[in-house]
């Protein structure tokens, strides 16, 4: 099961393809979709393999990726 999930902010993405290149799990692929600026957009094609390792976000030059890890829901701190 997926350890995490990424969010690609398409308004910031410039289609460089670094995320695809540096995801060792093959979770990201450049698509044929284009952004407002006419640049190719990546797709998160393989969510199940995502380890939330951070690499794609580290390498994205346009701060277009946010990465989240799935964690146990913390019980509401009642009191």
């Amino acid at each position, binding site marked *: 099961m997926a350890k995490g999930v990424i969010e690609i902010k398409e308004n910031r993405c410039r289609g460089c393809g670094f995320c695809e290149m*540096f995801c060792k799990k093959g979770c990201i692929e450049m698509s044929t979709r284009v952004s407002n600026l006419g640049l190719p957009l990546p797709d998160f094609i393989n969510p199940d393999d995502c380890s*939330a390792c951070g690499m794609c976000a*580290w390498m994205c*030059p346009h*701060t277009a*990726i*946010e990465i989240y890890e799935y*964690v146990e829901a913390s019980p509401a701190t009642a009191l």
Partner: protein
Amino acid sequence: MEKKWIAGTPRLWRDIPVIIPFCPGCQHGTAVKALCEVIDELGMEKNSVLVVGIGCYTMASILVDVDSAMIAHGRACDIASAMKRIVGKDTMVITWQGDGDALAIGCEPTIHAAARSEKITTFMINNGNYGTTGGQLAPTTPLGQVTTTTPFGRNQDQGYPIQAAEFIGSLKGVAYTARGAFTSPANYQKTKKYMKKALEKQRDGVGYSFVEILSTCPANWHMSPLDSLKRVEEEVIPLFPLGEFKDVDKIE
């Protein structure tokens, strides 16, 4: 299950209403991101001042959530030197410059700040040309490279590239120099380590610290983003090796 934020836009990266004009695959953004993270990780957000030169990276002056000034092309080290001597040791004064900015028109300010052992830190993004003005020869342009002012490739007639980290490191007043790159996640982390160390040298009052960061300029290299990254790896790093070149804890 809940979602916990792991990585992405750094906390100190401001959400600004203007378009960030970095070209696709340009690593100026990566460098600014690393800077945000480093300042945050060192807890220096409230006592840092960013002095930003003129180049494609000038945007950094409004992107990073610390006090910041956009100043004259090339004179960041003059300005930072004066600031530091007034704000005192508890405020980190950081210059953010390009290779053209810091080494060409900024030659005198940079070298003299280093010689004077100013307690400031310079981060210099080396993309081997003047990105902003359309890709002219820079003091760092490798031999053979085509730029708009070396249309037939740089030859010896225009001399040889300056290796800033080594050259500046040879001055006695310098506490630390290093050269990093963003060609891989490992390098990204290593470069951040250099940047941190440089700031620590300033914090500890050792002397001038300088980190050169190799970066892509796909637009002016006329290459795709991925090819640019490959060029840094295969052509630039062999000429501008990564690593630390000076690292002292006390001068003298």
